[in-house]
């Protein structure tokens, strides 16, 4: 198995995200989790673009299908180096839906990843990011402030609510 597939699988383990792909919600969660894991500083080399469901990497899609086709025994006895694990632990809280947020876990992580992407990669202000979320993700947008709060409390930092 290619080392980058091993690294991807182990990243998902640390982030407490399943690597099974039999369901579209699971695949969505993998995409957003790897995005956030890379943002935490463990860069696996995936480049994310903006798609209907937020940050998405077609190469990552290819890789998790390849992982699904691989012999999982090759993973046995392998782990991420501690420095990578420490970085990822910083974003594990972002994978959990906060109390009072009426979204599923994949939806919550989609919101967090999307907001972070719009602010840091697309370079949008918070207001512009919210506008995009309202237009493209109306179900998620009402919880954008909570996502901003969660990002702010994480090593990713987030940005102030009112950005010039």
């Amino acid at each position, binding site marked *: 198995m290619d080392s980058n597939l091993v690294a991807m699988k182990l990243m998902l383990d640390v982030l407490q995200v399943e690597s099974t792909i039999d369901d579209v919600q699971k695949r969505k969660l993998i995409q957003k989790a790897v995005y956030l894991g890379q943002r935490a500083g463990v860069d696996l080399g995936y480049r994310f673009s*903006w798609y209907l469901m937020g940050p998405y990497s*077609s190469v990552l899609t290819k890789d998790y299908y390849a992982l699904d086709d691989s012999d999982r025994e090759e993973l046995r006895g392998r782990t991420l180096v501690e420095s990578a694990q420490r970085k990822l632990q910083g974003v594990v809280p972002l994978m959990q839906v906060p109390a009072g947020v009426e979204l599923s876990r994949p939806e919550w992580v989609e919101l967090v990843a999307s907001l972070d992407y719009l602010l840091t990669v697309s370079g949008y202000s918070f207001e512009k990011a919210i506008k995009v979320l309202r237009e493209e993700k109306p179900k998620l947008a009402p919880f954008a402030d909570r996502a901003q709060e969660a990002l702010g409390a994480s090593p990713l930092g987030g940005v102030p609510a009112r950005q010039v």
Partner: protein
Amino acid sequence: MVAGELRIADPIHGTVILTPLEAQIVGSRAFQRLRNVKQLGLAHLVYPGADYSRFPHSIGACHVAGRVLHAIRDSGGEVSEGDIALYRVAALLHDIGHFPFSHTTEHALKNFYSEKLLKKAGEAEPAAAGEGEYASHEVAGKQVITEDPELRKILEDGGVDPKTIARVIGREDPESKFKNLVSSDLDADRLDYLCRTAHHTGVPYSVVDLNYVVSQMRLDRNGLICLTDKALRAADHLLLCRYFDYRQVSYHKTVKAFEFLLESLIRRLAEVGRLHCDAKAVRERVASREWYTFDDGKVMESIRAFRESADADDVDKAMADALARRHAPKLIVEHEEFKPRGNKELTLQHKQVMTKVGEWAAEFKVDPRRWFVWKNKITPTKFASHVAAADVGAAVDADELAQSVRVQQRGNAIPLQSVRYSLMHPLADHELTLLRVYVLLDEAELDKREAIAARIRAATDVSWK
């Protein structure tokens, strides 16, 4: 003719006209570098004509992007002259960050840098843990566009923000109008690539009906490019072209054999510190303008120097010599079969072979590093969409679907494979599985080939050809 315009005679598109800004971009050193980065890696060792570079391909992609947008505008779509100018430049620069030998180099480096993130459970933290972050060609491209002094000045003087171009190429801006023009199964890159590769390899199976396909491109309600329903047969044909391109060129048995050698050598260059290609090294190369000479020739020169150095062991030398003399590793056995999608047999077959390679290497006294086991699948409808016909329904990944070739049907754009009378409908549920075992044998060992093949056939449950 407008002052500063450039007319180029292109074997695929005829006369291609570049605007003054595009002509300046083409004249930049970062773009001229693409003359020395082959599009098809080592395919020319099998198809002698297939040594075209990313230079004409990038110009071709620019031309196709312009044609697609004109076609959309002519059919009533909202496309401004500014849109056309922007997307042509984006298509022109979409490959600017490609490494020498492109995908082979990236595969070698991705694995090399990923391994720095890994260790065995219970082992102490390695000294070089996490050192070096892999940089893909897309990341490198963004660096070149936004940080190369010459290119940045050309763009800025031409009224174009380099960051905007990078965002269009990377599809990073939700407000981009034509999101899948530069990146999807139906993009300008692939359309030029297929026609150009068919022309230069002499393999005619991937000749796309480019004029008709371009004329039938439209925008769906989400601003994504799709095809009219009239173009359904052309869409089927396009995907078949891609299938044959993969099967006949990219996955050609001898092309893959040479890529194994090259990938192994590039990996060794990285291991012994003769090739630094992490994100930091890429940034430094761009800033120092060393990027301009970071091309196929540079890598081959590095391989030659490595071969003559004390860093190279006997296997390294054998690989370098085999590549230089065009002595491909021998294909010992091959399995090829269409199977239903999702079938796990290939994984099991691959595992069966991999667990025995060490044993065979010892038995035939051929170093295990000289053995290469390769597996892959080709789904005719794939190459960004993994969606089978049966899965196109409520619980489908919208982003995976957005990558696929889509046709208009009753006001909606739907994946081709979901149209029951498209050829892709039945083909989407099957995939071609491939499993090969190669061994790099010295001339004096070639007589081992049959014996190795017999051993593999006897020891495995695979239906080898």
